[in-house]
């Protein structure tokens, strides 16, 4: 009681609690950018308009390019700048432009393709993300210089992009889901193997270009045949 009275009057020092600096600036910023990539994936899961999904993909790719520049600047890897510029041109400009052009030709804006309610899909995506973190935690990847949460987040991006493909029944979501899966892989690549030879980075991006062309043809063919972008009509092969 006496102590309480002392505290109440003047006994408490006017000192703010001290804290350790916590994670390094490199680690925090890298993880924060990676989280933006993951949250954009969640936003794609929710987005109602096909063109919103394409814009979100462009934004996600921009975040991946920023990550590449940040990793390059911090680790002094010149080749990663080239990969970042290529990724920016291809993923932020070219692929979204191709998809937007296809959508404009299809005259379809809103595709009601959510197989489940948005809140339910978000909850499933959270569970899947937790699974990704648990799986990555089991892997023997330990390094004081690696931002440890980033691998889990990259894995979560990949799994949530699979969910996007599974839970949305329109061709744009399928395409964007597949492309954003590539973004998840890129994030992991920049963190774990930042010094990868330039040629491999270029090959990965070339793969994406081929995928964009193939999806473009598929979207055009599907729309030409079914007059819709929904995949619900694809049931001829059902037993």
């Amino acid at each position, binding site marked *: 009681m006496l102590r309480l009275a002392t*505290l*109440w*009057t*003047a006994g*408490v*020092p*006017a*000192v*703010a*609690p*001290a*804290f*350790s*600096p*916590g*994670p*390094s*600036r490199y*680690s*925090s*910023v890298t*993880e*924060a950018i*990676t*989280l933006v990539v*993951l*949250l954009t994936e*969640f936003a794609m899961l*929710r987005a109602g308009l096909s063109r919103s999904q394409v814009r979100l993909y462009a934004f996600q790719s921009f975040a991946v390019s920023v990550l590449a520049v940040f990793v390059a600047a911090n680790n002094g890897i010149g080749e990663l700048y080239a990969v970042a510029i290529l990724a920016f041109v291809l993923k932020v400009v070219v692929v979204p432009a191709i998809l937007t052009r296809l959508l404009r030709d299809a005259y379809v804006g809103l595709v009601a393709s959510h197989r489940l309610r*948005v*809140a339910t899909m*978000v*909850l499933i*995506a*959270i569970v899947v*993300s*937790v699974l990704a*973190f*648990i799986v*990555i*935690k089991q892997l023997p990847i330990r390094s004081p210089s690696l*931002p*440890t*949460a*980033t*691998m*889990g*987040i990259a894995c979560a991006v990949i799994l949530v992009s699979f969910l996007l493909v599974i839970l949305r029944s329109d061709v744009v979501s399928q395409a964007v889901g597949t492309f954003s899966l590539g973004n998840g892989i890129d994030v992991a690549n920049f963190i774990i193997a930042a010094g990868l030879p330039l040629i491999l980075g270029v090959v990965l991006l070339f793969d994406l270009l081929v995928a964009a062309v193939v999806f473009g043809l598929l979207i055009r063919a599907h729309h030409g045949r079914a007059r819709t972008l929904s995949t619900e009509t694809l049931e001829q092969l059902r037993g």
Partner: protein
Amino acid sequence: MAGIDLTPVQIQVFQVLAIVVLAPLLSGAIEHLEGRLQGRRGPRILQPYYDLAKLFRKETLLPEDAGWVFVAGPLVAFMCYLVVPLLIPVLTAYPLPLGFMGDILGGGFILGLAGFVVALAAAQSGGPYAQLGSSRSMTFGALIEPSMLFITFTVALVTTTDLPYFEAAASRASLGQAVRPAHLLAAVAFFLVVLGDTGRIPVETHASTLEFGMIDEARLLEHSGPLLALLKWGSAMKQMILYTILVNVFVAPWGLAGSRALSAVLLAIPVLMGKAFGVGVVFAVIDNSFSKLRLFKITEFMAGAFLLAALAVVVLYLGSG
């Protein structure tokens, strides 16, 4: 004046007074700004004080079915809003003695109690719209609780305590702490919680007179005179308390008094007001840029807040982020 040191008691009185006195001013400034953003002149910045003075002078009319709960509700809610500033860093960077009475969750419970008694008073009024608002606010309040819990878990995992003073100190410790993903996620989740709790777009149109779209505002419809004044004052205090937690714990825990000097504590008051008004500007811009969600779509908004808070815990617990 610079040489005068305050005792913790005096500083805590200052904390409560800052919220009580400045809350209507903050509301008035935000409403004025909203008017300007909508191309109107907007009400005077001091209008909330005039409104309160007018309501305090009026008589109280009670609905036929109203009992003591209807009268006690606004009083208890107001007292709850007086208690919360004792627990949070309003003016000082260092913890004050009564700050240890309750953690973030404790503060949340007290705010929850205030909301509950107001809803109870509205339910007892017998007015259909007041009861509708009462029911809705309790439903959405329950949906936002999981997000609040996970935000508390995040604070606990970062600081090994869940006292708001310590989370603020952790953010100030280094840039690495301030931009660590878990902290950012918890901050954005809390921002969404505040957006919902203060009845802002996209959850509610706070200035609307359309009863069917109301949630929190509908609860006040049957009250009048001094009781309505207390509810409106309390509502402004709740807004300022939530803004204070947002800026002084999560977003910008800088500019707080670092000593007991009277000058430092007095300087912290305009800084707090400036930061809270900054949050108000962001909210006013959101209010003018987005449309209100349909009532049954509000769960998606709550799911978004929960997603961020849950990810914050996951990133910390499983990824040490």
